């Protein structure tokens, strides 16, 4: 499995490693090559931090938990059985880290659940013409709607819709059966649909 890596914003020192398979990087990292582990971070850092952010809803916490995810990955690199599943494995660690944080820190006050009245208000209001503003507003609505989903649904929804993982991969990451995750995903979609419905109308061309 050869994956090209993005070099945007990286030093020229990485140019020689334009094409590195995950397996090669893992093998090198296991031998203590820090540069290889850095490349793994470069490749998966963005999807992992996005995923964690979707789960916990806070930037500072997402950054902290992303660090924790990669440190745990480094410590346990030798326990990775199938090198072709590095990405699934990393998401699994990130899921555990995010869940632990949600479970133990009880950040109930930080959760920004969407208020149904607000949906109605948006739906009744005339949408502003400026696309940028609208996108900004939509971002807020999606973030709040995600925060209002229960943890299992949010997990499955994020992995499927934002990270485009297959059902099999989601089952591996979450430890859920495929029928359960399909049910969770269906319900999560329905809830999200209800909350973003105002933006699906004719006044908001996509």
């Amino acid at each position, binding site marked *: 499995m050869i994956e090209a890596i993005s070099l945007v914003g990286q030093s020229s020192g990485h140019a020689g490693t334009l094409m590195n398979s995950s397996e090669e990087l893992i093998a090198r990292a296991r031998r*203590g090559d*820090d540069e290889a*582990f*850095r490349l793994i*971070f470069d490749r998966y*850092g*963005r999807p992992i*931090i*996005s995923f964690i*952010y*979707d789960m916990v809803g806070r*930037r500072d916490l*997402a*950054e902290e938990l*992303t*660090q924790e995810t*990669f*440190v745990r990955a*480094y*410590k346990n690199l*030798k*326990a990775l*059985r199938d090198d072709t599943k590095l990405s699934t494995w990393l998401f699994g660690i990130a899921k555990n880290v995010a869940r632990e944080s949600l479970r133990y820190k009880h950040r109930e006050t930080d959760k920004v659940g969407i208020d149904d009245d607000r949906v109605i208000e948006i739906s009744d209001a005339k949408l502003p013409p400026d696309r940028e503003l609208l*996108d900004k507003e*939509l*971002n807020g609505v*999606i*973030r709040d709607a995600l925060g209002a989903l229960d943890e299992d649904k949010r997990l499955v929804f994020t992995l*499927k*819709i*934002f990270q485009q993982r*297959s*059902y099999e991969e989601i089952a591996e990451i979450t430890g859920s059966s495929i029928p359960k995750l*399909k049910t969770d*995903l*269906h319900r999560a*979609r329905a809830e*999200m*649909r209800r909350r*973003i419905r105002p*933006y*699906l109308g004719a006044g908001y061309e*996509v």
Partner: protein
Amino acid sequence: MKCEEYQTLIEEYADGMLDERAADRVTSHIAACADCAYFYKELDREQELFSRYQRDVEVTPVIWASIESRIREERAKRPTGIVSRLREQLAGIFAAPRLSPAFAAVLVMIAIGLTVFVMSRLNSTQAPDQVATNNPSNPPGVSSSAPPKSPAPPQPEPKPEGIENTERKPRIVPPRKQPSNTALTPAQLVQEAEQKYLTAIAMLSRDMNKRRSQLDPMMLARFDASLAEIDRTIKETRQVVKGNPDDPIALQYLLAAYSKKVDVLREMTNNNNDTNN
């Protein structure tokens, strides 16, 4: 099938998760049903909206700097060399079979018990003789020099070779290690434990070979893979022990690997019994 049921299928269709036959059924239904066609279109628009979702979060160099710093700290804590490699390998093996929670619990208990036992024995054989012999105030059971199975009776000071019994003058003898016939060395200890494990392994293997055909093929393959990996670890660990017979960590891992093999074989047998019941 009702439209509600079709909606779940339409979502799977949009996710590209349906096989060809199911996908054909869905497209035929969408072509014939206005409500489901609308649902499908709405799903498409939702996906478009979600694809434009932008998060207030970025991968910054600070994040990598923190990770790198923690990795360095982590590395500094790790023991170096082959022992470290073995430790990690063994840790991997313990994670490998993922058989049952009960089995995992047993493994952990055995590993802990084994570690405590071997380390206490190793500590006892490595304890300075001075402490044990020159400190009579040690209460019984506290002295670290007495192996639990074969307590060494007080031995008379052996006479150096070449000196006859006729020489009765008191002599100043420099403190030296007292030879002990009863205290086991780490290598002897391991040899003893190894023999026991090998006997148990031979018995269990014999039993298992008779019943292999009755075991679920997939389960059997997993067990065989685990056993192969354990055998490899045993082989490698034995080489380390051979070169470094007093290394307590290497000895500890060797015994843990044997213990693991016994447990996997036992689990295979139990699994076989469960299948037959």
